[in-house]
């Protein structure tokens, strides 16, 4: 992989997007795009082809799981990391079964997020 790994951050909350962006940037990731809905995420993925997608589980219109499915339909090698809150394990499991590569649980520990992100794009 030439240059910094690229990331698409998908979350309906700006707070979360910023926080994730800061964490990832601190370790040399390049944030190439952000999306606040599932539909937007699918479109941006097609457009940007990032190395990694961080995906919120619950979002307005299209949820994270359907977005994962559609992204993987486009690119079977897409690398998606789910971002979940406590109590959403059933959805995380569904996402993993759909093809998500890993997950992190809010509240985020920066080290945990980076660990997962690094491992996925390896």
């Amino acid at each position, binding site marked *: 992989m030439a240059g910094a790994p690229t990331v698409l951050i998908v979350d309906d909350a700006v707070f979360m997007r910023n926080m994730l962006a800061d964490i990832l940037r601190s370790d040399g990731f390049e944030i190439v795009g952000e999306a606040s809905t599932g539909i937007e995420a699918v479109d941006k993925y097609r457009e940007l082809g990032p190395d990694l997608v961080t995906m919120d589980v619950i979002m307005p219109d299209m949820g994270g799981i359907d977005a994962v499915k559609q992204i993987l339909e486009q690119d079977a090698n897409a690398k998606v990391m789910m971002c979940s809150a406590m109590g959403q*394990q059933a959805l*995380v499991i569904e996402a*993993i079964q759909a093809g998500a*590569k890993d997950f992190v649980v809010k509240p985020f520990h920066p080290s945990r997020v980076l660990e997962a992100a690094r491992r996925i794009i390896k």
Partner: protein
Amino acid sequence: MDISKYRDIFFTESREYLTQLNTVLVQYEKDGNFRSAVDELFRSVHTLKGMASAMGYEQIADLSHELENFLDSMRDHNPGSKDTDLLFQAFDALEQLVNAQERDDEELDVAEILEAVRSRLQEGVSGQASQSVARNSEPIQVALVEDGIPAYRVKVRLDQECVFKVARAMVVIGTLDSVGRVLACDPEVAEKAESTFDGMFDVYLQCSEVQSKIEEMVRQMPEVMAVEVLPFSPDMDRKQLDPKPAALKRERQAASLGMDKALAVSETVRVNVAHLEAMMNACETLVMDRAALARLSEAIRDKDLDRLVGALTRNLSDLQHEVLQARMVPAAEILDRFPRMVRDLAKELGREVDLVCTGRDTEFDRSLLEHLGDPLVHLLRNAVDHGIESTEERIASGKPRRGTLTISVNRDRDNVVFMVEDDGKGINKDAVLRKALDSGLIDQDEVEAADFDDTLELIMRPGFSTATSVSKVSGRGVGLDVVRHSVRSLGGALDVESAPGSGTRCTMRLPITLAIIKALLVQVGEEEYAIPTGHVFEVMAVPESDMNLVNRQWVLAREQGVLPLVIMRDALEVAGEKVRDGRPKTVVVVSVGSRRSGLVFDRLLEQQDIVVKGLGDLLRPVEGFTGVTIGGDGRPILILDVTSFV
């Protein structure tokens, strides 16, 4: 992998572990120290499980697995008698399974005992243990999907802090699937509810990466606490997930112990018994050929031939000695099953008994093994049933509360001597005589003349009594005639001593091998007989004039006293002249217990090794002979049961 070649060793070894299990548990019942017992029990059961899994004997593995959980749950509290009884039952079931497996009989159903262990575990111990039972209750099947690619079992334990254990496990599984092919998971993680999943799981994986690479990859994953990658083959297509992390450590300990053991015994090899039998048979044939050759060379009278026969005799004797050594088994093989048996017996009869075994290392030929069990069991049963008193009786008569039963095994020249001794009430002379009178074995005159030795002799007679009546009347005698009969048919002797009030001792003296024994060949008239030297005290040449008839009994007066004689020509009903033909006679003095008699023959021929053949079922009831051997000229020679002439 062809596992059938491990079959024999599996059965041999699993029996050793079963014996070990019983011994350790009996010891616990005795000393109440479960802490020292539980590790040993756990280790034996664990090893058994591993062996059975590797062989694909699922029932054995299943039951061992449950027992392992059960034992693990008891580490912190001593099991009560209900638990030990259950364990004993489970050990029995395991033994039955092993036996059934050896017969290729897969019909045996142990579901009941399996269920009993499971439910005991659930009612008795913490939820965690019962969870692990539930998790492991369904066996999984793993089949390889592609040949030539190594398969692994990846054992993973997640961090206890991990909040989404199922999801985390699935990520691990997904990652493994990205480098190889996941064949199965145990438990099936995806079907688990978060609340019942403890974060431990096995992934069966086929993957061309090396073991260490896989391990490293999983270790680096978030929230993975421990990982172990083991080679896997579908022969072991059963789960072996340990119930707790601690068990993982124990498994390693057990493995390293096993290694030490293997190093310690590296000087020995295991040999199939069939080879030993074949070696002995070959020896027997050689022994007979040698005898024939010796007879031939006697007739030819050639110096060189004589020397050759001499050398052959020596070499053959050495060979025979070595073969016999190879076939030797320690008495432990038979003794080690008795603690459990005596424990059961004592419990059944409401006695308190300590069993002491000495001479476990005493060796004898394996041909004895199968014949020893029944007589010894008879003697032990007698001692517990009729010898040792009830606890109340013992206390009343000022004896220690618990009775002591001792089995000791010693080697005495070419004999092995088994002694079964109890500190019970001994044999009651009056009761025995009364009983013998009632059953018509003796008349009133004989009752009055009888001394204690006669009394002991009586209880070994066939028809003395039956088990039920004697146990009420005198207290001893059950099947002693049966024991004596089998001991005699092995060329041995049974001797009973008893001190009223303080105990009884039964001594079984047997040749160390049943296959080839040293014997004297003697002649009466035209007939030859063999006498096993085990019973021979001395051999004398005696002029006829020294033998006297006193009270219808031939005797020989000697410095040590009067020796009763048995004129074998009469006893064996040999045709020909009567005893007084003017020539000196050969008197073979035989001793059985404290009794001695002189057996009078016409001539002593020689001493040689003879091959013992059984008489077969048709001739077995014939009194006076223990077997037959083949002479140098091919004629059969009967082997005398000297004990029946004393």
